[in-house]
């Protein structure tokens, strides 16, 4: 469905020092430099896949999504989405994709979302029956019935995002590019959006490429992740495998019937947290079996769980490794 081969996207940016003198000087002389937003990346995504696209700010995620959706022309390389070359922006291509940007909206600000629905129905030439079915379905899935008649400006951020998703999917695109779709939303709304994206993907077999700073989004939605840093693809595979590679250690979380000495916990591994009758100990993969056995025999346990390190930490370590390299 998506094929990217040796994609490069460089921006030419004007560099200027701060201050009045630099402003005056920039009238006569403007030094430019090329910024490599995306630098030689290749990947392929199959039909119906859900892929998380991770990376720190400025890594090149959004630039890649914009190239894939035809907004930007690649500097070099080949890109194909649904059999089309995106930058040609052919009607057949635009009919099959959508790009939802959490920080931008296509809803008409002063009109109710239902007006944008009608507008998109005309633009995408959606047959009446399909339009009615889709609106009914989206209204039910996203609980929009009370929202469609209110002016967009009077909706909360979460309500607006639900309507944004609905309007972006009205034409039943086969490829979804989601750029931070849950940004700024509360936890329950994030879960609603995640559930909806998964339902849409499963119902229509649509391909999803998602960027998000919320690791829960990626963990809940994406069996496969791609990690980009400084414009280069540094990982492409499953999320558990990424965690294993970057942070092979585990977190042993113990709950105790009575407080114990810190030294008793240190016998298991590195103590990360220790509060009265609760503790978290970091243990290497190899020592895990031994540590669990020792905890079971030596500690007054009421509960024991073994978890991977939090994804945020995994990513922080991964990017720190990248910077050190």
């Amino acid at each position, binding site marked *: 469905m998506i094929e990217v081969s040796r994609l490069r996207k460089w921006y030419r940016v004007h560099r200027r020092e701060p201050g009045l003198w630099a402003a005056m000087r920039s009238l006569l002389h403007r030094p430019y430099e090329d910024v490599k937003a995306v630098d030689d990346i290749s990947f392929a995504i199959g039909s119906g896949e859900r892929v998380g696209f991770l990376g720190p700010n400025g890594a090149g995620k959004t630039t890649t999504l914009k190239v894939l*959706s035809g907004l*930007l022309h690649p500097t070099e390389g080949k890109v194909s989405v649904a059999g089309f070359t995106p930058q040609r922006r052919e009607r*057949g291509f*635009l009919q099959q994709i959508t*790009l939802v940007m959490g920080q931008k909206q296509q809803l008409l600000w002063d*009109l109710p979302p239902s007006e944008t629905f009608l507008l998109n129905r005309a633009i*995408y*030439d959606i047959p009446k029956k*399909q339009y009615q079915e889709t609106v009914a379905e989206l209204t039910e899935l996203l609980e929009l019935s009370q929202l469609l008649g209110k002016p967009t400006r009077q909706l909360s951020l979460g309500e607006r995002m639900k309507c944004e998703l609905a309007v972006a999917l009205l034409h039943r695109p*086969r490829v979804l590019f989601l750029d931070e779709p849950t940004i700024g939303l509360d936890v329950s709304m994030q879960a609603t959006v995640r559930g909806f994206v998964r339902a849409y993907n499963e119902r229509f077999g649509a391909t999803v490429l998602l960027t998000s700073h919320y690791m829960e989004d990626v963990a809940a939605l994406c069996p496969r992740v791609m990690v980009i840093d400084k414009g280069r693809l540094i990982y492409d595979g499953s999320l558990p495998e990424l965690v294993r590679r970057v942070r092979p250690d585990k977190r042993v979380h113990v709950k105790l019937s009575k407080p114990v000495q810190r030294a008793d916990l240190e016998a298991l591994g590195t103590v990360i947290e220790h509060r009265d009758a609760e503790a978290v100990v970091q243990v290497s993969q190899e020592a895990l079996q031994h540590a669990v056995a020792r905890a079971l025999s030596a500690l007054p346990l009421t509960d024991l769980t073994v978890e991977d390190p939090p994804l945020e930490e995994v990513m922080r370590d991964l990017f720190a490794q990248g910077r050190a390299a």
Partner: protein
Amino acid sequence: MRVIDAPKAPRLGTPWGVRRFASLYAQLLRTGFAEAVAYRAEFLIWMFSTNMPLVMLAIWAAAARSGPVGGYSQQGFAAYYLCALLVRLMTGAWVVWELTMEIRQGTLALRLLRPIHPLLQWSADNIAAIPMRGVVALPVTAILLWVARGELSHRWFDWLLLLPALAGAWLIYFLVQAIIGTIALRFESAASLFTAWLGFSNILSGYLVPLDLFPRAVRDAAQWLPFRFQLSYPVELMLGRWNHEQALQLLGVEWIYVAFFFLCTRTAWRAGLRYYAAYGG
């Protein structure tokens, strides 16, 4: 992954037929009108700010108190400037501001994702505001018909040509704005370039001063420049300045300019998109 109900195949290759286009454009107009109505207070204030012809009328009417100036009596000036105000109200466009703002804020990206040319949608927004403009234009027309009835053309042919002349005037204004706005795809802003164009346009279109009152060299140049067709030509038709043949000839020149600016817009747009950086978010 289980596909419960695959989407209907997109209707690729559907001919962009006249009916399909008409239905789309009708929806664009409905949406544009709904937006214009939503912004009604701001819109009315903006329209009332189009008062330069009335200021110029006051100045020239005072100058013509003791006798005609350059062939214009007080009533002649009244007819000219009321016609100019009417033409300006009916041919308003603001796409350059929308375009430069959306390019700078990055929101143009969302328009580019839709299978419709953004300029087509903006054209509908601008045209859909005409009924709102009528709120001001209708009283102006009534005053014009009463005050300057002796100066207006009495030939039906002139009034028949007025419609395509106004359409051409609006298209030139809209397309020039689109070309200048499109330059912002490459340079992020083109507002100062449009201000420069507006400066020439205000003078050479006859908006501030009737072209007849300029020195001969300027007048001759203005006759063939595009600015004149934005305002002076429709006004000249309303005042019955030309015989049938001359009026038709000028209409032809006006629409050659429309075609020329249309091609320039297409070229500039295609070239601009190559440089579009889609900044932000």
